[in-house]
């Protein structure tokens, strides 16, 4: 793989999709307002839960706010990259335009996952990062190089797990053609990731750790933030991430053998 070429192509992707989005100014403003209102609404909801109790599942409001911050960053990444690209897979398969992707001399997964970008998600990422900095302050977390590296590793892992899950579901489109609903179910489940895993019952915790790894997406990075994540959890998260990335990649290559293209 020629890394320079991929860098050049990705720069072009960034430029063309930003230029496309900037054609519609009002849409960007509406998306930005939605992102702000969504964050305010989520914090308000969280504060209602904590109104009559000091902690939920062992987490104080200030600590739970970290999960909200990570969720907002992930949601921003979802809206910036995953949503505009991975939702397109369904359209590509239904309309047969996946043909153009497959005939380009670049990796089809790279092309289909990164072709578009939605700048409105940037605001969510910025808001999420600001919230995390605020949480560092109110939780009196000491910043150190180790802390930053661990945070970066776990958040990167979260992004990769989320991407793999989404990509895996979108890939099934090659057989089932229309799978909008499945990705919507995944998005709905991610809302659960705004709350600490320990606030759920044992069976639900098991479900959200093994079947749909919400626990690995938000809770473990939050624990790293608060300094009470054991190292084995971080190693486990890296391991789980690799499994998800490899599986989704192999599944895509396997599915392409069954691609029958749409009729003309």
């Amino acid at each position, binding site marked *: 793989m*020629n890394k320079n*070429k991929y860098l050049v192509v990705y720069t*072009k992707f960034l430029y063309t999709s930003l230029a*496309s989005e900037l054609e519609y100014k009002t849409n960007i403003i509406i998306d930005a307002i939605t992102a702000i209102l969504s964050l305010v609404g989520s914090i308000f909801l969280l504060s209602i839960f904590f109104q009559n109790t000091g902690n939920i599942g062992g987490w104080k409001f200030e600590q739970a706010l970290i999960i909200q911050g990570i969720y907002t960053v992930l949601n921003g990444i979802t809206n910036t990259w995953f949503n505009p690209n991975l939702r397109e897979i369904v359209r590509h398969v239904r309309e*047969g335009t996946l*043909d153009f992707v497959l005939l*380009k*001399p670049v990796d089809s997964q790279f092309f289909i996952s990164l072709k578009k970008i939605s700048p409105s998600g940037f605001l969510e990422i910025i808001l999420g990062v600001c919230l995390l900095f605020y949480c560092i302050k109110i939780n009196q977390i000491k910043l150190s190089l180790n802390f930053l590296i661990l945070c970066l590793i776990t958040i990167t892992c979260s992004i990769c797990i989320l991407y793999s899950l989404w990509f895996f579901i979108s890939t099934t489109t090659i057989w089932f053609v229309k799978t909008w609903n499945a990705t919507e179910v995944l998005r709905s489940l991610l809302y659960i990731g705004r709350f600490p895993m320990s606030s759920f019952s044992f069976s639900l915790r098991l479900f959200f750790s093994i079947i749909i790894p919400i626990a690995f997406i938000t809770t473990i990075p939050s624990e790293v933030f608060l300094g009470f994540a054991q190292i084995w959890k971080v190693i486990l998260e890296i391991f789980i991430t690799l499994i998800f990335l490899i599986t989704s990649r192999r599944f895509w290559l396997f599915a392409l053998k069954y691609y*029958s*293209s749409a009729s003309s």
Partner: protein
Amino acid sequence: MVENIIEVERLSKSFNISSKDPGLRGTLKHFFNRETKSVKVIKNINFQIKEGEIIGFLGANGAGKTTILKMLCGLIVPSEGSISVSGCLPYRRREGFLKNITLIMGQKQQLIWDLPPIESFYLNASIYDIDKFEAKRRIKKLSDMLEIEDELYIPVRKLSLGQRMKSELLAALIHKPKILFLDEPTLGLDINAQRNLREFLKAYNNENNATICLTSHYMKDITSLCKRVICVHNGSISYDGKLEKLLKKLSPVKEVLIVCSSEKDANKLDNSGFKVKSKVKNEITLKIENRNVSSSLRTILNNYDIEDLFINEPPIDEIIEKILVKKKYTF
């Protein structure tokens, strides 16, 4: 001696296709217990194509032309048989192979809808490892040939269908492919745009010695571009040879629509011994054998009072249906 650039041997393709009975009962049955059956859409076909040839694939809708093109360019994996395109197995889609081919589909587009086509061209150039200066040179040359210099900077959504199709062609040819797969490239275009596109393809073929595999339902595309055609019927090849020979068999007549000055003239023409296809008031459509067209028209113009006339080739679908499907002719 010119080398074969495409070789196809005993190629077959089957698809699992589900069918649904009409009505609510059929819908529920289809939802809970979907019945699929394997349908062989391409059946044991063989052919070779030489470098620089322009080949037309003819056949009715659903005959299997597009499936063959998609197997040739590597989008669909064959069920049986072998394909070699430019010495490669297409379905492996290796980088070297993909840089050598292109696929253009008249009904699908790859240009970025909200941006001017030039942005899509530069994006494609980066995908094909073409540097900016070379890309600029190729865009200039191809846009000159296609006469779309002025449209390069207008958003795709504001372009007419013809301008969009020309831009699609430019986007698909920026990497100078040696093999072009064209699936109904002139679909929906007006006559001028169709002619321009055909002239461009001819010029591209001449200049680059490119091999072109083309499907089209417009007889004119085939007659003006292809010397050789492959007729596909129900997934099998029913004819592979010179177009000239095929046309003599498939289209021995032309349809001439004559608008007479009055219904009386049309009635007179109706009884004059010409083969009449249809007649509505003062308009009459005659079927005239190709070799008699000029003499018959002379007779009509000299003896009847006519307002207008149009000469039409019978639609290729109609010919295919009447002749290939009913198997009146054997080749």
